[in-house]
Structures are given as C-alpha cells and as structure tokens.
C-alpha cells in the first residue's frame, strides 16, 4: 500500500463519527490482509509494525500538504498527529488552517471531537493538551460573543435600564450556564482519561485549570450575570470535592487526585472569601456559600483522617491529609480574621484537632513490635505527617509576635501551650531519627532546642 492510499483510507475512517471509537495499537497483527487499519467493535486499530513507515509516509505527505489549502492541511495533520502526537509544527499548521477556514458554528466542537479521539490513545503530549486549551478558548470566545454589551451609563431613564438589564441577565445567565457545562464536559473527559491512564499529569492539570478559569472570570467580571455563574461554580466545586474524595478511595496512590482535591478546597476557600469581601455592589455576602464552605472545610479533616485509617501504608493519602490540614489552617486563619466571629465557629474548629495528632504518635509507639516492611513504611508516613503538620503550625507561628497571639487567632490550637507543641515536636523528631539511618534527610536536621 502506498502512502496516499494509507492516508486516504485513514482519513475516510476519521470522517466517520469519531465519537464512536477509540484508537488502539495492535501488537500482533491478527489478520493477514495488507491493511494497516482495522475498524471493529468501536476501536480503530493500527498495527504496531506499520507505525514506522506510516509515520515516515505521513510526514512526507505533510511536507507537501502544508503548502496547499486548509482542507489538505487538516486531512494530513489528522493522520500524522495520530502517530506523532507531539509534533508542534503540525499542531501549529492545524491552528492556522482552522483559523482561516470559514468559521461555521460547529468548527471548534468538531475539532474537540478529533482531540478527544487522539487522546483515547495519546495522553502525554503537552502540545496536544495545549491545542485542546486553544480550541476551548475559541469555543468560549464563540459563546461570549453572544453576550450583550454592558449597560449604557445612563441614570435618567430607570425604566428603560431595567428592561435592558432583565434581557441582559437572561442571555448572560444562559451563556454562563453553557460555560459551566463546557467545564463539566471537560472535567468528565479528564476523568475518563485518568481512569484509563492513571496519575496522568496533563489530564489532572487541565481539569484543575478548568476550575481556575471560571474563578478568574468571576474575579474579572462584575456584570449582573456573575451571580448565576458564582452559584453554578460553588455547586461545581462541591461536586468536584465529592467526586475526588470518592476517587481517592479507589485510587489510593493517585497524588494527582490528592493535589486536585487540595486545589478544590483552596478555590472554595477563596470563593467564600471573595463573596465575603465583595469588591463591587453587585455581590452581597452569601450565607449559603459561607455555611457550605465551612461545613466542607471541617469535614475535609475527617475525610482525610478516614482515608489514612483505611489505607495507612499509602504515602499519597498521608500527603492528602497534609494538604487538607494545610488548607484548614489557612481557612481557620482567614475566618478568625473577622472581629465579630461567633464562638460556635471556634468551638467547631477546636474540638479534637490537636488530640488526633497526639494519637498518631501513641499509635506508632504502640506498634513498635511490628517489623514488616509495610508497618515500617506506615510508621514513617505517620511520623513524617505529624512532623510536617507541626512544621506548618510552626511556620504560621512565626508570623505572630508570640505563641499566644497565634492561639488567639487560630482557635483550633486553643488550649495548646508552646511547651506542649515543643514536646510533641521533639518526640516526633526523635522517633523519626531512630528509624532513619537509611534516609539522611532527618539526620541532617539539628536537634531543636527545648
């Protein structure tokens, strides 16, 4: 088969509905035909043995096609990128071609379909992920172009302005709902990719950027529609927190997910803060969000604790606990900023936070007889976790004049004296050093003064 035939044949297959199949690389050819492509049972199969010559021939065809019309460029790069997904110049030519063809309504949606197909197989090519972002940005611009212009600065005609605002709000609300839906679709695709290709850095980063994108829109935009967007967004963040903690229960070594969970908490925290200190008169403090975020911050501590109790030998879950505690401390700092903070908050935050950490040390001490590798590793994670948490508190303390000032501000530390803090830290470090001839890091640290 010559290159032109292979190219035409693959292109024909790609022009079928690409949503309905994925790409598979066939290691041992199971048919004797000379056909390099197989389409069956929802898979577009490429024989591994054919890839070198396909790549070479597609590249040759690409060199000619890039000097031709947009359609040729789109056709040839579709084929080439399926075998060389990180070919930056081919992606660039593709962008040029897409931008120059007559912009029809579903141009960018269809391009997303192609990227989705490619990502059923290739998930680690940074340029392909950037292309995805580029296409989404075009799609968002397309959506936003329907936004009504900002209201005219005219104070004399109240009635007229109200009618204007109502129409605007309806359109704006609709557009912003579409935006959130777009983010939800992206998140779902990222979840599917992360399920097939665990711990995929790019998928999780993209997913988190979707959330950050809306966060920035909320920050930048103060039109009347942002309230709707904010509500949708809070709901989205809440859903993301639920799905991420559920994910961690079955993907106990997935640090990408743990980091993403932390990002969700951080965005929730900032979302609440933003609504607390509205920069413009459109936004009023929203008690629902405040309570929701508060409940979630409190429960995150418990969720993280339950996860490590269930799978104590997983480093990632101990790190997730670090993350949740860190976010919790930041949150505790922020809310006790308010002078009129009620005592309920303090009580809730106070409950058993410190005791839980002391319990970890007792638990390690009680398990000293177990010398299995898994037990040793668990003990290491437990102790490192407490050391990390204490360090985090210690760093926080440095921002205050005295320990008492810290405790006054961060009420979850109420009742803990500086002496108790020092003692606990010394205990942890001593225990770590005893276990650590193999890891020099803790040995390097000087003994802290009591």
């Amino acid at each position, binding site marked *: 088969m010559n290159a032109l035939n292979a190219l035409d044949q693959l292109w024909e297959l790609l022009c079928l509905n690409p949503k309905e199949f994925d790409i598979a690389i066939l290691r041992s050819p199971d048919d004797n035909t000379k056909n390099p492509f197989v389409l069956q049972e929802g898979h577009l199969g490429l024989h591994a043995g054919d890839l*070198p010559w396909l790549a070479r021939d597609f590249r040759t065809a690409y*060199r000619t096609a890039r000097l031709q019309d947009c359609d040729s460029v789109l056709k040839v790069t579709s084929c080439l990128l399926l075998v060389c997904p990180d070919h930056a*110049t081919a*992606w660039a030519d593709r962008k040029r071609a897409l931008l120059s063809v007559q912009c029809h309504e579903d141009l960018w949606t269809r391009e997303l379909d192609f990227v989705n197909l490619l990502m059923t197989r290739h998930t680690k090519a*940074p340029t392909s992920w950037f292309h995805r972002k580029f296409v989404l940005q075009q799609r968002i611009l397309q959506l936003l172009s329907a936004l009504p212009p900002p209201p005219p600065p005219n104070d004399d005609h109240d009635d007229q302005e109200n009618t204007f605002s109502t129409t605007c709000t309806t359109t704006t609300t609709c557009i912003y709902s579409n935006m959130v839906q777009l983010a939800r679709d992206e998140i779902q695709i990222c979840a599917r990719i992360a399920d097939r290709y665990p711990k995929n850095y790019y998928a999780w980063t993209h997913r*988190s950027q979707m959330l950050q994108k809306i966060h920035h829109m909320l920050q930048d935009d103060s039109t009347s529609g942002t309230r709707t967007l904010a509500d949708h967004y809070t709901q989205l963040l809440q859903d993301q927190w639920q799905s991420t903690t559920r994910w961690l229960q079955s993907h106990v070594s997935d640090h990408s997910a743990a980091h993403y969970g932390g990002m969700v908490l951080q965005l929730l925290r900032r979302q609440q803060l933003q609504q607390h200190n509205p920069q413009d008169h459109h936004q009023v403090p929203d008690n629902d969000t405040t309570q929701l975020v508060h409940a979630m911050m409190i429960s995150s501590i418990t969720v993280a604790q339950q996860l490590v109790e269930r799978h104590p030998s997983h480093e990632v879950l101990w790190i997730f606990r670090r993350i949740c505690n860190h976010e919790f401390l930041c949150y505790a700092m922020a809310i006790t900023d308010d002078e009129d903070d009620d005592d309920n908050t303090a009580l809730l935050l106070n409950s058993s936070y410190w005791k839980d950490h002391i319990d970890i040390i007792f638990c390690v001490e009680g398990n000293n007889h177990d010398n299995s590798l898994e037990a040793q590793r668990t003990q290491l994670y437990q102790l490192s976790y407490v050391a990390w948490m204490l360090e985090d508190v210690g760093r926080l303390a440095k921002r205050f004049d005295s320990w008492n000032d810290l405790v006054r501000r961060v009420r979850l530390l109420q009742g803990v004296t500086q002496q108790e803090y020092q003692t606990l830290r010394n205990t942890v470090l001593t225990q770590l050093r005893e276990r650590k001839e*193999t*890891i*020099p890091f803790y040995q390097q640290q000087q003994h802290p003064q009591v």
Partner: protein
Amino acid sequence: MTTTSSSTSIDKTQKVSLQVPTTTDVPPFFAGLHTSYIAGLAEKLDAKTSYEGAVTEHLRMSGVYWSLTALSLLKSPEEVDVIMGLTAPTAGRPISIVDWVLQCYDNRSGGFGGNIGHDGHLLYTLSAIQILALADRLQDERFLNLKESVIDFVAARQQPTDGSFTGDEWGEIDTRFTYCALSSLSILKALDRVNVTQAADFILSCRNFDGGFGCTIGAESHAGQVFTCVGALSIAKSLHKLDADLLGWWLAERQCDSGGLNGRPEKQADVCYSWWILSVLSITGRVSWINRDKLATFILKCQDDEDGGIADRPDDMADIFHTFFGISGLSLLGHLHAAIPECAPFRQIDPVYALPTDVVQKLGLQGQIMVAQEGDSVEERLQQYDTLTSQHKLFQ
C-alpha cells in the same frame, strides 16, 4: 529564611567528599559501551524500520543535545567532535551537526525548530544554542547574523501581564519555557532584554504548599518542573525567594526503597529524576539530604550491559534521554570521576545550565547557588556562581 551573600568566604580548596558504592553486586560503569551507544544512535534512528526515529524526527534537536552532552562527560572535546561530526562532517554524513543546527533556524519566527523546516520553539532554540556552545561556535559568523533575531524571538515570548513565557507564538505557557528563555538569553548575554524579576515572580506563583513547583499556576508539583523552576531562579539570581527547606524535604521524600528517585509521590523511580532532583539539590546545597550511594547503585543497575545506554529503570530499553540523565546524575553524585580514573581529566556537568562545567566557565555564565548552612563547602564545579547562605529553619 535569613540569607546572606558570602561568595568571598568560600575555601576553594575544599571538595565535597565523593561516595563510591563498595558492595560487590553493584555493576561497574560501562563508559565504553555508552560511547558506542551514543556514537551509533544517529544511524539507528535513520534506519527505515526505526519507530523511535520516525516519531522523534520533530525533536531531533533535543536528541542531538542530549547525545553531545552525555558524550562530553565521557570523552575529550576533540574526541566528541570527531565521533559526532560536530564541526566537520563525520563519515557517512553529508553535513556537520553545527551546519545542520543552523539549517534548523526558522526565518519566519526567528527561533530554532526541532528539525529542518519546523516552526521555531523555545525548547529547540535553547537546545540549538547549547549545541553551539558545546561546539564553541557561538562566534560563528553565520550564527552572529541570526543572533539578534534569535534574541528578539526569545524576548518576545515573555508575557507582559505576569512575566511568564510562551513556548512559541501560539501562547502555551509552562515553567519549562521560563527556564529555556532565561538560559538562552544568559548564554547569549542578553538577559537585560527581558524582565528577569517578573520572570522569577511568575515562577514563584507556581509554587505549591509542599514547596514544589508545577508546569503552571496551581499545577501539581513535579520533579522535572522543579528543575526548570529552580534553574530559572538560579539564573535570575532570585534563590532567596525559594523555600529551599520545604522544597528539599519534598525532594528528599522522592527517594524510593530501590534508591532511585521518583518525580511525584507513589510513582515508580525513574533515572531521569536523578538529574532533575540532583541538580536542584546541588544548586540548593542539599545533595546530602538523600542517600547518594543507593541512588548511584540504582542508576548503574539501569545500564544496558550489552549494547550500552541507560534506561528509565532496570531491565527497560535504553534511550538517549535517560542515558543523558543517568550519566549526568552520576556526574553530580561525584561518582563518575571516582569510578573511572580515565575520565578524570574530562568534564563534569553543571547543574544550572546542563552543560559541561568548563563550557559554562569559559562563557562566564552567571547564576546563583546556595549552601544549606554557614560553613558548608561549595563544590568546585559551582564556584563561578554567587553563593547564598541559607540559615535553614526547618524544625527550628
């Protein structure tokens, strides 16, 4: 973290003690095999049946840079030149590497592409400049004619909004590109063409709660990205903005039971992180925070003892990427020079610019490094840099 500059108080005669594993089950370093592996690579990639060659054509520039640098740590500059056909064509090749690099210049953008006819990109522009530096051809007239356009290309990548850099005209932002830009401009003595402070501040905005860095703001910490971020801060002489203790803790936790380093928690150890992590520990004066013997052993076990080359992990297939990182890692550990006496007159790797130290010194490249505690000695290979003493505060 309190910091004081103390570049004058370093005792230049002091050397960091070299650690050589003494146990018998540690394989030797196969310098000869790696040399022939690298020397034969181009031919292998150009073979019609090579999958590797077919799918990596567009990043050939980086492959050539990895090959040259790895070989430079094993052979004299003269030998490297002959083996690779660096400045004059070697047998069977129509043109020298330098000629080929110059042909990869992309007139439209002003940058270098990954191969002839490709769009200019920061990744390959840095590799091209590094190759020219290795070949001592930065003063080549043909390059001097392009130099201003190349500088323009790199400088134009900086975003005025936040100081970040895009890889090319399309706007992808990544902390890797900040490193590529600062390193390129530093080598071309044109750092003043960008806002270095803003570039460093962008890097810092990508720092996570764990002290590590990701590819963009809010992205998960990744040891590979950590190198590009700390390297950029070093070139920007902004290491005082780094929380080196917290970062060092996170990096030290990347060492696995096998002795190898992973790039993220609960991922498999991989030879490439020997370079990414060791270079950062070296820049921040904290190499002793990991077990060096165990790491050297891990790297040595990833060698192909028949055909040469180093793989990502034991028993995997060797590739040039991991060969470069393995050899450079051993160099940073001080193992290379201790293990093979015949290499002693040759070169060591520089952790900031990823070039042989003598190239960095000859070009007078600027940067900053740290010592973890007052009184710590500075490795000989780092002595051309400004030194920052960080009084480390962890557990204090």
